[in-house]
């Protein structure tokens, strides 16, 4: 009986290729820039926070210091932007970050 089941399993398969796994895009890096002037200051509201456009030389700590007055609050910005930040040490000019509760 066990043999029958195994044989049926073999014949049920359409081909010998393994099922395709879903591609992983978690390490995609992105950036951007414009010939138009950037609206470099916070430009709007998202939920209870604001948005901030990263400029050259920024780090999450610097942004936290500027927005909250406390560089140690960088993690709050990181957590709010996990969809666009893969590595908290890597942010790019032109990225728009949510600044929660600022």
């Amino acid at each position, binding site marked *: 009986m066990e043999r029958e089941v195994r044989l049926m399993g073999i014949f049920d398969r359409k081909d010998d290729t393994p099922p395709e796994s*879903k*591609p992983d*895009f978690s*390490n*995609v*890096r*992105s*950036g*951007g*820039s*414009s*010939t*138009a*002037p*950037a*609206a470099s200051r916070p*430009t*709007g509201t998202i939920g209870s926070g604001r*948005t901030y*456009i990263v400029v050259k030389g920024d780090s999450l700590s610097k942004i936290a210091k500027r927005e909250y007055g406390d560089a140690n609050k960088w993690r709050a910005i990181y957590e709010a932007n996990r*969809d*666009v930040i893969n590595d908290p040490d890597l942010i790019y000019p*032109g*990225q*728009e970050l949510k600044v929660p509760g600022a």
Partner: protein
Amino acid sequence: MHTRLLGTSIVALTLAAFLSAACTRSSDNPGATGTTGTGVGVRVSQIDMGRSLTADKTVNDNTDSFKPNDTIYASIATEGSAPTATLKARWTYQDGQVVNESTQTIAPTGDARTEFHISKPNGWPTGTYKLEVFLNGSSAGTRDFDVER
């Protein structure tokens, strides 16, 4: 009296129909895409894709076919001016997975080029992708492209 009322009604109905038709044509105008409601308008006029950019943010090699190790650039031309305009690029894979989504808020004062780029250190999976560009939250155009070995 009845004749005068009837005449007035016909004129009013004709005017209403004319205005309605005029409004419909205005909203169907593709040039209205992405315009703000403030009287100051910005619209996306062109979306180009390539592997590299010039200094003025146009692509060197307009293409819709890429290799797995390419950095993929999208150059978006906008016309018009506004105190703020938000451009968003959403890149999706053939299975609908969102590959990346990024936003830039610009203050254009005329014709401008805004570029978005994506890269993947361990290479892009082969297949078909789509870039959709949004201006102030509304879709302003799409481009399909392939990654092939």
